[in-house]
């Protein structure tokens, strides 16, 4: 998902009986459904994994502003412009909440930014794909937010208190995002002109597999998720969520009159689920390792915003310091 390639630092899950007393008490708290709070004792690996996962999640929110931000100035009506702007603004807010939650683990937001800028920390592969037409605003809202919600709803129950609480707030705010996107798709794919229908299908074709990739590699190739699941910082397996996403999305596509770009897609009466083709995992690895269509541009845009803003952040800080000193001198 937003944290697709979080590598657990543990070496698989240790059975309770082999744990030391502190680790064992910790695991038992999680098993009982208790929340872990910042000042509680926690294993180093738990802390490190969480910082990485929350960092990736927060980075995904703010890098995720860019592909949609690409269309704010070209939104076709005042209403669409306001909706899209509000949505992209929410993403900044969600990044902010998660960064703040991560800060309770002893890392600063600036440090997290630095790790993003240096390439040390990743963000979701999905945001390395370009948004080429207005229909992409529909496809992103419908598919990308749809996939994200699927992951974020269970994360409200994650074991780390500040993260869980941030997710509660985020899920509440995010409920309109997917609908906003789907609404754009209805307008274009169902009720639109021939040009608009073509744009809608084209956007769907380009975003279908990248959306499937958002859930991360197949469980059988994802050796690290067991520990994360034991710690309840990951709530479902990648394949479970991917299947759920396909099952929910296919009927929505049918309603729109769009064709899923997968000739093997078929409802399986025995399983009660859709069978579908795996995305191209080589492409996924390319994108993750920096060779997606937009990796360089996205990171450049983030770095530029950060560097261009340095004088503002410094200026405002200097003013605050001066103000405090003047106040002190006056007393």
């Amino acid at each position, binding site marked *: 998902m937003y944290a697709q390639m979080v590598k657990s630092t543990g070496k698989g899950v240790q059975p309770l009986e082999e744990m030391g007393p502190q680790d064992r008490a910790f695991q038992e708290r999680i098993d009982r459904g208790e929340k872990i*709070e910042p*000042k509680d004792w926690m294993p180093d690996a738990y802390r490190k994994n969480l910082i990485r996962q929350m960092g990736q999640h927060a980075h995904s929110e703010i890098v995720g502003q860019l592909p949609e931000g690409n269309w704010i100035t070209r939104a076709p009506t005042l209403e669409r412009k306001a909706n899209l702007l509000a949505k992209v603004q929410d993403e900044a807010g969600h990044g*902010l909440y998660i960064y703040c939650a991560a800060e309770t683990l002893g890392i*600063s937001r600036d440090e997290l930014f630095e790790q993003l800028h240096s390439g040390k920390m990743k963000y979701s592969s999905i945001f390395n794909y370009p948004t080429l037409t207005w229909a992409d605003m529909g496809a992103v809202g419908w598919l990308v937010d749809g996939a994200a919600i699927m992951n974020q709803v269970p994360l409200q129950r994650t074991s780390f*208190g500040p993260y869980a609480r941030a997710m509660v*707030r985020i899920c*509440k705010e995010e409920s309109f995002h997917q609908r906003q996107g789907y609404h754009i798709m209805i307008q274009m794919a169902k009720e639109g002109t021939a040009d608009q229908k073509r744009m809608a299908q084209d956007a769907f074709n380009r975003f279908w597999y990248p959306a499937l990739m958002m859930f991360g590699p197949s469980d059988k190739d994802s050796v690290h998720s067991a520990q994360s699941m034991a710690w309840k910082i990951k709530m479902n397996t990648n394949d479970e969520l991917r299947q759920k996403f396909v099952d929910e999305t296919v009927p929505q596509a049918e309603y729109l009159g769009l064709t899923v770009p997968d000739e093997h897609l078929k409802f399986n009466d025995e399983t009660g689920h859709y069978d579908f083709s795996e995305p191209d995992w080589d492409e996924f690895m390319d994108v993750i390792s920096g060779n997606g269509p937009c990796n360089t541009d996205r990171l450049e845009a983030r770095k530029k915003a*950060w560097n261009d803003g340095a004088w503002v952040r*410094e200026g405002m*800080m200097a003013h605050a310091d001066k103000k405090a000193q003047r106040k002190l001198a006056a007393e």
Partner: protein
Amino acid sequence: MTKSKEWPLWEIFIRGQHGMSHRHVGSLHASDAEHAIKNARDVYTRRNEGVSIWAVEAKDISASSPSDKGPLYDPARDKIYRHPTFYVLPEEAGNM
């Protein structure tokens, strides 16, 4: 990469128009208290009128250690609103 002094972290507490007390809603960064309050209006209240905002620099908050479980905590276990970082808000923060 430019390295500069980071804006401090602030904890934000909001009391809605008809609310009885301030509740923690989250955190943010700001250069000073006034800036923090403005940022809180933009980030956490969507500028609803009639809300009262407190901003406290995070480093100035003293907190008990949550793992010291015992008499201090047990009686209040089900009163989650007492949790220092509890911050579930209704959609419109102003209608608290």
